[in-house]
C-alpha cells in the first residue's frame, strides 16, 4: 500500500514555438498516494494544465517518467495506453464546451463504457443511471436531453458523471470549478469530496485559487514557470508558506471581510506586487527589454513589469528557480526572453474527440463562434 498510485519523476514538457522552444514543464517530480488529493496551484501559463495532460499522456512529455500504479505510461503504445486510460480520467474547466452539443446526455455519459467495450445496452444504461444518481441528477429527466438544456453547474455534474462511469482510480480536475459561480462551486466541491469517498478516488486538483484548493486537498503543490516551487501538507503550507510566491498567491485571494482586506492592502499586497514582477524576469532582462525598440510584428512580454515596481531590486530569495518566461500558449520572438501570451481560445476543442471524429459528427452546432469556426 505504500507504493504511490502516481509517481512523476523529472517530467519535462516542451512545445516548439518557431525556432525556439517553450518549456512548459521543467523537471517536475512528485507523487500522489492512493486516496490522496493533491492540489496543484499556479497562475495561467505556469504549466499546470500541461502537467496534467502530460500525466494522462494527452501531450507527449519530452523526457521523464510517469508511473501509474506499477505501469510506466511514457512510451506506452496506443492499445495499452487506452486500457490504462480507463483508470484515469480528466475533467475540464468549461463544462459546456466539453460536452458535444449534438449528443444526448445518456449517450455522452455512456461513451466511456462503449469505448471500454461494454456491448450490452442494459448494463450500460444501468451504470449510467447509477452514476447520474450519484452526481445528484434525476436519470429519467436527464438521459434524453441535450447539453444546452442544462446550466453550467449541471453540465459540470454531467462531466463528472461521464468521467466516473468507468470507475477510474485517478481523476484529474483541470480548473474544474473555476468557471462556476460561488454557490455552484461549493456544490461541485462538495460533490467531488462525496464522489472521492464513494468511488475511492485519488484526485489531482488543478486550480489557480488557493482558497478553493485548500478546501479539497490533503497536500498542495505550487507551480511557477513550469517548476514546482513548494509542495507540502495543506495545513502547513497555508500556515507557514515558505516560498514568497505562495505568499503572493495567498495575498491575492479576495477575503469576504472588509476589515481584513483593508489590513492586507496596508500591509502586504503592495510589496507582493513588487515580488511578483521581479519574479517574472531577472531585473536586467526587464530593463533590457524596455530599452529595445520593437520591430513590427514583434511581441514582448510586459506582464513581467506591470507598474513601477520593476525598479525595485529582486528579493534575494526568489528568482532562484525561475527561468525566463515559459508556459503553454506562449509565442516566442526575438533574442531576449521576452514573450507575449498568445490567445487562449474561449472554447478549446475537447481533447476527448479527435478532429476526425468531430468532422464525422458533422458541423458543430455550438452556440460558440470559436468552436463553430474551428470545425468548418
Amino acid at each position, binding site marked *: 500500500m505504500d507504493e504511490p498510485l502516481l509517481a512523476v519523476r523529472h517530467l519535462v514538457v516542451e512545445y516548439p514555438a518557431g525556432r525556439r522552444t517553450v518549456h512548459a514543464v521543467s523537471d517536475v517530480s512528485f507523487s500522489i498516494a492512493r486516496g490522496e488529493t493533491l492540489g496543484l496551484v499556479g*497562475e*495561467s501559463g505556469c504549466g499546470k494544465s500541461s502537467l496534467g495532460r502530460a500525466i494522462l499522456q494527452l501531450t507527449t512529455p519530452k523526457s521523464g517518467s510517469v508511473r501509474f500504479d506499477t505501469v510506466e505510461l511514457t512510451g506506452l503504445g496506443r492499445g495499452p495506453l487506452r486500457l490504462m486510460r480507463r483508470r484515469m480520467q480528466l475533467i475540464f474547466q468549461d463544462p459546456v464546451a466539453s460536452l458535444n452539443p449534438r449528443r444526448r446526455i445518456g449517450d455522452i455519459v455512456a461513451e466511456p463504457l462503449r469505448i471500454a467495450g461494454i456491448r450490452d445496452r442494459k448494463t450500460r444504461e444501468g451504470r449510467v443511471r447509477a452514476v447520474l444518481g450519484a452526481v445528484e441528477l434525476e436519470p429519467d429527466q436527464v438521459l434524453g436531453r441535450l447539453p444546452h438544456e442544462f*446550466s*453550467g453547474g449541471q453540465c459540470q455534474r454531467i462531466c463528472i458523471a461521464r468521467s466516473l462511469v468507468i470507475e477510474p482510480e485517478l481523476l484529474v480536475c483541470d480548473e474544474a470549478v473555476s468557471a462556476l*459561480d*460561488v*454557490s*455552484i*462551486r*461549493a*456544490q461541485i*466541491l*462538495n460533490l467531488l*469530496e462525496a464522489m472521492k469517498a464513494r468511488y475511492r478516488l485519488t484526485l489531482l486538483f488543478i486550480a*489557480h*485559487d*488557493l*482558497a*478553493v484548493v*485548500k*478546501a*479539497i*486537498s*490533503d497536500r498542495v503543490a505550487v507551480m511557477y514557470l513550469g517548476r514546482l516551487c513548494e509542495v507540502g501538507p*495543506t*495545513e502547513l503550507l497555508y500556515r507557514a508558506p515558505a516560498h514568497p510566491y505562495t505568499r*503572493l498567491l*495567498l495575498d*491575492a*485571494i*479576495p*477575503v*469576504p*471581510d*472588509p*476589515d481584513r*482586506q*483593508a489590513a*492586507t*492592502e496596508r500591509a502586504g*499586497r503592495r510589496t507582493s506586487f513588487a515580488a*511578483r514582477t521581479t519574479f517574472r524576469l531577472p531585473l536586467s532582462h526587464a530593463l533590457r527589454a*524596455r530599452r529595445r*525598440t*520593437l520591430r*513590427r510584428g*514583434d*511581441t*514582448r512580454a*510586459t*506582464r513581467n*513589469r*506591470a*507598474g513601477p515596481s520593476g525598479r525595485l531590486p529582486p528579493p534575494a530569495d526568489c528568482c532562484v528557480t525561475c527561468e525566463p518566461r515559459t508556459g503553454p500558449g506562449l509565442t516566442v520572438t526575438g533574442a531576449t526572453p521576452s514573450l*507575449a*501570451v*498568445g*490567445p*487562449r481560445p*474561449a472554447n478549446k476543442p475537447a481533447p476527448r474527440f479527435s478532429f476526425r471524429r468531430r468532422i464525422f459528427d458533422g458541423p458543430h452546432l455550438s452556440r460558440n463562434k470559436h468552436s463553430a469556426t474551428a470545425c468548418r
Partner: protein
Amino acid sequence: MTGATLLAVEGLSVDLPTLRGPLRAVDEVDLELEAGRTLGIVGESGSGKTMLSRAILQLAPRRARIAGRVLFDGRELGGVAAEALRRLRSRSIAVVFQDPMTSLNPVLTIGRQIIETLREHLEIDAAAAQRRAVELLGEVGIPAAEQRLRQYPHQLSGGMRQRVAIAIALSCEPRLLVADEPTTALDVTVQAQILDLLDRERQRRGMSMILITHDLGIVAGRTDEVAVMYAGRIVERAPTPGLFKAMRMPYTEALLAAIPKLDAPPHTPLPAISGRPPDPTRPFRGCAFAPRCRHRAERCADQKPALTSADASGHRFACWHPIDPRAA
C-alpha cells in the same frame, strides 16, 4: 465630492419575451448612487444583475419591455434620443465587460480602438489623440505604451486586455463606470491587480462605479455599498461594513458561507445553497428564496417581502424572518 445623487433607478423592471412567456429578468429595482461612490451588485448567474446594468445603460435587448425610470444626473435616460444617448454613454457613463477578448475588436490594433474613441467623442486631432492614448495606457499600468498601440488584442494576455478595455472606458473621463464581472475570466493575482487599478483610477478621477460580481469577497474591500440580487430583485442593500458585520437576509449569509475560507481546515464541507433559483418565467407569489431558505415559514410562500429598513443605518432587506444580528 459626494452628496449629489448621480444615478437613480426607480421601479425598474425588465421583461424579456420567451417561448414560455415573458421572463422577468429585473423586478422593480430601486437604486441610488451618489457621485464618487462605489456600489457593488452581487448575485448568482441568472439573478438579473447584468440585465439590470444593461437597462441602466439603455442597452437592454430591443425586444425587452422596460418599466420604471433611470435618472442620470436628474435626466431621464428612457426618453433620450439614440444619438444623444451615444454621446452620454461615452462621456458620462462607460462600461467594462467581463470578457475583454469579445469586447475588443480582434482585427483592429489597440491604438486604433482607443484613438477612435477619443477622436469620436472628444473631437481632438489625431496627434493629440495618439498622445492621450499613450498616457491612458500608462495610467492603467501598461508599459511601453507606444509599441502596445500597434498590437492586436490577441497579442496581449487576458489581464493586459482587460487593462486596455479599462483604458478605453476611462478615455472620455466618464462620471460613472459600470464594471460587469471585470475579473471573472482572470486569475486571482491578475484579479487583484485589476481591482486595485479600478479602485485607484476611480479615486483619482472622483468617478462613481458600479461593480457587478458573483463573489462577495470582491466587493468586501472595494465598495461603499452592496446590493444583493436574487431572482431579479434586490433582497438586501447596505453600506459594505454594516453588511459584512451583520447580514440580515438568509440568502446573503448563504452566499458568504459558500466561499471556501482560508482559515478553515481542509475538507471542511462547504454549506452550499441547495436547489436552484426559481424559473423566472413563472411568477411566484411569495419570497423567491423561500424554497431554498432554512428560515422559511408559511408566510414566505404567500407574501412577497418588501425591501425595508430596520433601523436608521440604511441597512435594508426583503425578508419576513431576517437573521437576528445579536444571535450571530
